[in-house]
């Protein structure tokens, strides 16, 4: 094992060029260039080498803090970090490197803008060898994994427990959620806060989105922004929920809004949805009466239009709203009395309700 400052690497390279090196040392090494990213992260969060392979690891401290890099025996990273933490006052003199056989190789503390190179032969024993910076406070976030195996296989990044959790996804730029690029309108059935577990989230053009709940059969909330972040939901076992990306401008407080013939709704049954030019039209029943609801964006960025059809109705229908839902309601038909829209049977067969984000007073 040798540690070389950048200068000595140049000399070493020169010597090689002159042919004055032994064959063993002239053997080409696998080179890993390790930079430091903002947020206490190694640029290469993991890499694979073969047992016994010659490795040239270059730590380029591209950060504005000091960092070291310790390669440890499998499963000992946390213990080494803990020991480094216990060095206390003697830490700086030791370069924050504790005295333990768990550490296989060390790149000592490297100042910002400096580089150091470590050349070593990978262990003969296959395994996952952690590397970590033990500078105070860094050890629990700044680490990675060297996979020593003849196959060179590593688990899927998203499921690799040997790297920091925040690194288990590809960068947003290179991430693709699907084998196609979804174009609004499109939808997901998801677990999401503010709705039952049978929620349907729909992205509309104009950066508007809404959550219609198949468990309760009504529009729960709407927002404008970049739709959803499903990273947690799709990661691992899915013990998580989809997150709204944007600002929620509507949230129902009314509950199920439609009453037929002035009756409190009894049995509400979710029937499904049909895509109309890629927009889902929801179908549900209230006490056996079919209701269809199709929701579109409007040219304004923060409003929705809800188009209802109740084809078989022969009695009056009411559409209830509540103040404080964040929107101003208007309707294509019927008469508003306070917060309730009253529709004749004829009007109920097809009507539209527009919800526009209320100005904050």
């Amino acid at each position, binding site marked *: 094992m040798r540690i070389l400052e950048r200068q000595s690497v140049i000399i070493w390279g020169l010597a090689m060029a002159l042919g004055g090196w032994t064959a063993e040392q002239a053997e080409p090494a696998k080179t890993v260039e390790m930079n430091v990213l903002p947020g206490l992260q190694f640029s290469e969060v993991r890499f694979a080498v073969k047992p016994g392979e010659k490795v040239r690891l270059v730590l380029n401290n591209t950060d504005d803090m000091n960092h070291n890099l310790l390669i440890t025996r499998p499963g000992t990273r946390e213990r080494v970090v803990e020991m480094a933490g216990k060095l206390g006052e003697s830490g700086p003199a030791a370069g924050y490197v504790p005295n333990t056989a768990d550490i296989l190789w060390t790149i000592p503390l490297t100042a910002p803008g400096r580089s150091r190179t470590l050349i070593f032969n990978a262990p003969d024993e296959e395994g996952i060898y952690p590397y970590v910076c033990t500078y105070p406070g860094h050890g629990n976030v700044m680490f990675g994994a060297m996979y020593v195996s003849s196959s060179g296989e590593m688990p*899927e990044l998203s*499921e690799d427990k040997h790297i920091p959790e925040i690194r288990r996804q590809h960068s947003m730029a290179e991430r*693709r*959620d*699907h*084998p*196609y690029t*979804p174009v609004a309108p*499109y*939808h*997901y*059935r*998801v*677990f999401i806060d503010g*709705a*039952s*577990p*049978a929620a*349907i989230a729909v992205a509309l053009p104009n950066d508007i989105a809404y959550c219609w709940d*198949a*468990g309760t059969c009504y529009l729960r909330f709407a927002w404008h922004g970049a739709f959803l972040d*499903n990273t947690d939901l*799709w*990661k*691992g*076992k*899915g*013990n*998580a*929920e989809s997150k709204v990306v944007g600002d929620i401008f509507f949230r129902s407080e009314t509950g199920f809004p439609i009453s037929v013939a002035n009756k409190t709704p009894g049995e509400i049954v*979710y*029937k*499904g*949805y*049909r*895509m109309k030019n890629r927009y*889902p039209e929801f179908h549900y029943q209230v006490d056996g009466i079919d209701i269809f609801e199709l929701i579109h964006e409007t040219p304004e960025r923060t409003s929705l239009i809800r188009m209802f059809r109740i084809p078989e109705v022969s009695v009056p229908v009411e559409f209830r709203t509540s103040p404080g839902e964040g929107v101003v309601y208007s309707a294509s038909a019927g008469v508003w009395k306070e917060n309730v829209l009253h529709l004749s049977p004829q009007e109920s067969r097809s009507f539209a309700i527009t919800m526009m984000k209320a100005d904050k007073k």
Partner: protein
Amino acid sequence: MNRYVLTVFLGWMMACSVPPEAGEPYVVEDIATPEGLVSQVGALEFLPDGKLVAAFTRGEIMTYDPAARRWELFAEGLHDPLGIHVVSNDELWVMQLPELTRVKDTDGDGTADLYENITDAFGITGNYHEFNYGPERDSKGNFYIALNASSSGGPMRKEVRGRVNPDGRDGETGNRQMYSTVPYRGWVMRLTDDGILHRFASGFRSPNGLVVDDEDNLFVTDNQGDWVGTSPLFHVEEGKFYGHPASLVWTEGWSRGSPFHLPLDTLDSMRTRPAVCFPHGIIANSPTQPVFDRTRGKFGPFGGQLFVGEMNRERIVRVMLEKVNGKFQGACIPFLDGLGLRKGNNRLAFAPDGSLWVGQNAHGWLGDVGIQRIVFAGRTPVDIHTMSLTSEGFKITFTQPMQDTAATNPRNYQFSRYYYLYHSQYGSPQQEVETIPVIAVTLSKDQRTVNLQLASLESGYIYELNLGDIPSKWKQPLRNKTICYTVNTLRTE
């Protein structure tokens, strides 16, 4: 099993009277999936037009034309779809977390436009483990689905669907065993053609695999864990209870409070035992979908038997069932190990050409992703065809004539027996492991069948047989040497 299977097998035996070609009888091939697809496979079936249809964890349903090697999107936005029943090229019934959904292309443009609720008459708490499996159809048009119990490793969401019954959860912390706080988690349900979802059988933990045989018998796999000492295959019959207590709270007229508080003896006397146990670490740790080989010989000599996926290693398991005293029981054996097969073998489907397609999944557990297919190369494998219980031991039938000196040597048949505990703890060690000597071996004239007489034969044990080096008559090695038979009952005739 049935007549055509017997005919196919006899045909095989005749074909096998000449030395078979050497080489691997089965080949594993990778199927390329589209770039950008996270191919965690939740469902895999074939359409009448011969295309594959697959559902993926992120909600896509895609079709694949094996001839043109082309993928196309059929539907999107589904919530963790884990099962498909193919109605036609245009219509699928898809089991997703919130419901069983009719996904249909009604306008002929090649993509689904109708997502109709077939049934959502069960609860969901939003716990991450509330996977739903099936639907499997019987000949009368009933559909079976299975509802996973909720995991002690995750919470209920604050808003749930369905009536909450806290008795379906264990203890003060409610945090130790898998639970059933909304209807009918941990049940197998039957959907009748009037659209009503009925309770069918209870006591399931994580039943990730359903199949119906030609006589409308339903078989379901479950996963080792609390109350499941080792992973089982159950023959599931109406009204029966299969061991995990949580779901009992949704038994019609249940008035016994928390089933977790019932005495262990009571629960044990209520339960129906597995038809086949998969010994943990030996045969399978996490069995998945079982499929019957109905390929009429296109997939080799095991027609009528079950192939079952295994999540935790590069393996497909084979199961052979028989009825003893009117009840199913039988044996399990590795079918294929390695050969390039990945882990996470979650979904299996036979293609029209008789190849077995395998969809892989990890879902945060041990596994892999992708799709592979297993092709029978036409070379008869040297393997155990069937293991059957006799009044004094077991009858082993091989796929080929075996070398007589090795096949008649009792030392080449090492039996041990053991059982697994039924208890609330996660899994069970093997109990009372005991070696059982073979006291007599007789080989049939055609050298394909041995009768093994055992020093002791008792019900309530798994008999694990490890075979020695018994080559075929043509000196080819035996492919699989460990087979486990679950003896629930002895032959009384």
